């Protein structure tokens, strides 16, 4: 379990606080999506997960290990993997397999074990065929999968994704989301920042941040049922929920706490049958 207790953080000593007393618990195998306007502290929060940032006040523990203790950092960084927004600034190796090997090499694993983990990670990220390719010749989606494989080679229990589908075309974004979903099913805890509400609707839990605090926390249905509160911080509802709200306003008897397409289709089909 990852636990935040009253975490405060500011980048500059005299600057505004990026996190203002965040308390949060993320259970093993949980799929949590973080949403919120730009600058609300989402990235700052996930960078606390593997001790890239340390709380000025409060504490963060990962499976009982306190991030304030420097001797815990290597272990914490194997427990929590981090996939940054821009893979170009995350990939270190020149070829795919070299990059994936970077983490295990830092863990000082024997060469045979490193090669085993690289093959396994490439397989899990479904990019085994790219192993010898030069990074510069890959597409944006492929680079994103290489970044994921690089993290998987560390065999983490949790992975934090900072907008993993940003700048990708729909097909590449779907491929990345499929891999994330597969990892979730394998039991890896997922912490996922997104601005895409359709993606947020698929999570087990949605945490809404605003100005460095946890604004709302609940299931997608609970969160997107609070349309007025979300509107206050300029967060749009998933498109499917917006459609149902409009249908409701036009007089059709539909539920408006629906967040995914399949349920919405069921509702509309029910109405058609009744008519």
């Amino acid at each position, binding site marked *: 379990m990852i636990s935040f207790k009253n975490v405060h953080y500011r980048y500059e000593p005299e600057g505004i606080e990026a996190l203002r007393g965040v308390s949060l618990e993320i259970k093993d195998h949980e799929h949590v999506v973080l949403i919120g306007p730009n600058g609300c502290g989402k990235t700052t929060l996930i960078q606390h997960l593997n001790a890239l940032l340390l709380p000025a006040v409060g504490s963060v523990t990962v499976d009982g290990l306190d991030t304030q203790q420097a001797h815990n950092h290597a272990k914490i960084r194997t427990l929590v993997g981090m996939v940054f927004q821009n893979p170009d600034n995350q990939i270190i190796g020149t070829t795919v397999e*070299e990059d994936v090997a970077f983490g295990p090499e830092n863990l000082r694993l024997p060469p045979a074990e490193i090669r085993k983990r690289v093959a396994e990670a490439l397989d899990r990220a479904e990019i085994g065929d790219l192993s010898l390719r030069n990074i510069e010749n890959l597409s944006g989606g492929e680079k994103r999968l290489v970044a994921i494989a690089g*993290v998987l080679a560390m065999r983490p229990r949790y992975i934090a994704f900072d907008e993993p589908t940003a700048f990708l075309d729909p097909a590449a974004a779907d491929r990345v989301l499929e891999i994330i979903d597969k990892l979730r099913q394998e039991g890896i805890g997922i912490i996922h920042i997104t601005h895409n509400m359709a993606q947020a609707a698929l999570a087990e839990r949605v945490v809404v941040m605003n100005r460095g605090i946890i604004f709302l926390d609940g299931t997608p249905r609970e969160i997107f049922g609070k349309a007025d509160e979300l509107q206050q911080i300029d967060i749009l509802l998933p498109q499917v929920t917006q459609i149902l709200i409009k249908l409701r306003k036009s007089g059709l008897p539909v539920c408006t706490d629906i967040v995914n397409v399949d349920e919405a289709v069921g509702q509309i089909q029910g109405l058609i049958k009744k008519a």
Partner: protein
Amino acid sequence: MYDTGTFIAGQTLIYKLDPRVKLAFTVTLSIFILWASPLPIFSLGVILLLTALTNGITLRTVGQSVRPLLLFIILIFLAHALFASEVEGALFVSYLGISLGGIQGGFIAVWRFLCLIVAAVLLTMTTAPSRLVAAIKYFLHPLKFLRVPVEDIAVMITLALRMMPALLLQKKKIERAQIARGGGLRRFGLWVRAKYFLSLVLGVLLGTFRRADELALAMEARAYARGERTSAVELKIRQVDYLAILLFCLMIIIFIALNLFLS
């Protein structure tokens, strides 16, 4: 896409050689290229070029590697052509004092330089960077006793190999952005071009610093810490390497004999 000098996976014999052997060959060849007389150098150049062509490196790739250094090559040529000390029997072509001997010297110097480029391209394009870095680390290993941070140097080389093409791409992107807004280095007078060049350099520099910052964070996130690391690469000299060393030594002995005979 920028692929000059960067590794491209292949299956020919040269790919299978131990990187230490290839690195030692390249260093030996470089010394020979700078030392030997014109005829052996010319033959060696042809052999290098044929080796490159038979290993999937095209003339276009060699040309791309030469292009950024074109100005430097022209300067080498001019320096020899204009300031050649050996003018015995020289035919003075113009009042600038360009002699036939000077032109000949210029061609030879440029040929030597091109040979060095082909040798370097042959090494870098047929050796995966991690294997190349492992070979460099192997040769630097004795320096550990002098407390030289060999591991850190190896990581720095890895990052340099990774970032060079990325930075050149970034330069191209900024150039295109300048052209798209009616600027760029191609159209205007010297002063305006200097101004655009400065903004290009600043853009690339700022981008590099930002990138370095994020990269350092990403490295830390993957448990990087200065000091000892292991490597996925295991270096092993095999039969094919011994055979290559034998052939290489034979070739070098023939060339040295030829060189001594000719001089």
